[in-house]
């Protein structure tokens, strides 16, 4: 995937470039907002990782101009401005995701992967399937190998988020945002406890586990390989 990294701090940009190249992406770095805009207008990157505060032109203006020019490529904001208002502002301007510095590289990678595979348009499946696990979003029921699994509301949403991203790592922060609508990290083990309960219902009674933990990164659900 061709990714543009627009970040005025050269060290951070280099850190991102190295990491993303190691993951097999082709990366171009620019250090100025105007350069980021002209690059996107004259080239066709698959995704932009955009710093909010840059010389020349701030990230928000770059994004608004891009969207006004009809460019629908996914944009991930990367910034030290991490307040709820800043996030809302970034997402309203047309950003697809928002990551606050400092961050784990695995967090960035998970979000980049999630964004890259986001289906175009608003197609919303009503039924999700991973191996022998089925989630019916209309009747709000989960079945594994034909057995109905009784899930609490939060457990159901948790499983839904994992299954919508089958095969991809979803970080703890992403789960907090998408399942609980928390833009902050609670000091207690909310994600871990709910994940443990979910696993006890979805995986434990069955032979093959579907939910997997990737250390220091997050969780994913996929069929046995």
């Amino acid at each position: 995937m061709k990714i543009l990294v627009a970040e005025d701090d050269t060290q951070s940009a280099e850190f991102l470039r190295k990491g993303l190249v190691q993951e097999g992406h082709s990366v171009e770095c620019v250090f100025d907002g105007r350069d980021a805009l002209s690059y996107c207008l004259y080239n066709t990157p698959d995704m932009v990782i955009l710093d909010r505060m840059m010389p020349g032109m701030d990230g928000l203006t770059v994004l608004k101009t891009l969207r006004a020019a009809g460019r629908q490529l996914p944009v991930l904001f990367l910034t030290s401005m991490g307040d709820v208002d800043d996030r809302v502002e970034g997402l309203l301007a047309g950003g697809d995701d928002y990551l606050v510095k400092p961050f784990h590289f695995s967090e960035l990678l998970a979000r980049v992967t999630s964004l890259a595979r986001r289906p175009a348009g608003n197609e919303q499946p009503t039924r999700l399937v991973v191996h022998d696990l089925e989630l019916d979003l209309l009747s709000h029921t989960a079945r594994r190998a034909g057995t109905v699994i009784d899930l609490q509301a939060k457990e159901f949403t948790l499983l839904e988020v994992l299954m919508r991203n089958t095969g991809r790592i979803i970080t703890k922060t992403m789960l907090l945002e998408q399942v609980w609508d928390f833009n902050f990290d609670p000091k207690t083990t909310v994600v871990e406890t709910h994940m443990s309960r979910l696993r006890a219902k979805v995986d434990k009674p069955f032979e093959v586990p579907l939910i997997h933990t990737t250390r220091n990164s997050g969780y994913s659900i996929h069929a046995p390989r």
Partner: protein
Amino acid sequence: MRPASLFSGVAFRSALLFLLVFAVVLTVAGIAILRTTEASMTDQLRSSITEDFDLLRDANVTGGETELVKFMRAAVATRSDKQSEFGLFKLSGRKIAGNMSLAPTFRGWGLLPPEPGQSADNRFLGYVEMLDDNVVVAGRSQRFLDTESGVILNALILSGLVICLAALGIGYFLNRGVSQKLAVIDGTLAEVSHGNSGARLPVGRSNDQIDHVSRQINAHLDRLSELMANMRNTIVAIAHDLKSPMHRAYMLLQEAADEPEPRAASSKLRRATGELEALGGVLDTVLRISRIETSNDISGYTTFSAAVLVQDLAQTFEPVIEAAGQTLRSASVPESGAAIFGDRKMVQQMLVNLIENASRHAGPESVIELGVRADDGGTIVTVADSGPGIPPDKREEVFEPFRRLNESRGTPGSGLGLALVKAVATRHHARVTLGDNHPGLRVTVYFPPPPAIVAGPDRSTMDSPQVADSPRPQVLPEAATNFTAK
């Protein structure tokens, strides 16, 4: 007090202005009085002269020139005050009788020619007429008229001067009082700007406008001092709290650099990263609190059900609290009336902090209860635990940033959780009360009723009335007794 500042004072300037206006009025009135008096006295003079001339005319009719000469001599002889002049001249100017030496050249009314040796200010008004072939003159001195005018003028000038001096004096004394007060205000504010944040303006008993303004300024200074003290405490606390993880990360990084074993080095680096993350978390929370405290933007506010939010949080935290060996209870039936007007995410984080705070400090096997109810149009959310609670005298302190009551016991926490609760409450004009749960701590948050007009494109109309109508934000420790000390 410098005289310059005294004379430039508002009261003094008012006195000067009054003086100027008074002087103009006095001058105009004086001129009018003078003119009227002069006119009246001139009329009197003319009528006296006319009476004299009528007598001369009668004498002429009675005995002609001879009788006229006789009458004139008698008149001159009887009027020894030298206030009257009579003259009988031939047309050629030759004097026949009277006490005048020169014949006037005019006929009718006019000022008579001065006699030799007569002072210039003693002029005579006279009437001249031809009786037969003679020029007959009767006149009277105008001196009394000038004297009377002078007396009136002097009286006017004197009274004007007295009033002017009085006005100046009153202005000076009024101004001295105001100027003294203003000088004190000036000095006190200068003191404050030079760093003495404890300096306050004196408030007198007269309860005048200056006292009112002084009270307002003092209230502002109190608020500023409080904010500055909080800021100073926060900065010191931040510096202290950031140094510890920073130091640990520093040590770990040093150790990792010297570590020959790659796996051990990697583990140390991960721990260092964890420390730095914690540090970042503290900074984020401090910034968030600061943003909540300073922003007044309510564009993101909505009216939402408190019961639904609390139930949602109960579902989220029930397994977490159970895993910690505690029990979470919540009212199962949502009360439809309990609504909050505000930023849902902020209120959510506030309640999460309260729940986590309760779980952290209540200890194992304790019970944590969440409650929601509508109250007098507003909404009350309670988070109660059966732990050791907080002594009444410490309840105010726990809302200060980085304040940990049981620090020595090593309970984890940044000490920012309740500071954020306070910030969110203040922002929502909510009242947080810490009370006794017998045993344990009961935190009650009262949210005022949602405003009647919530929607509307004009932000200014949303901001002011709601803020103005809402009760003052405050954090009050409930007056509770029989409290189990922590």
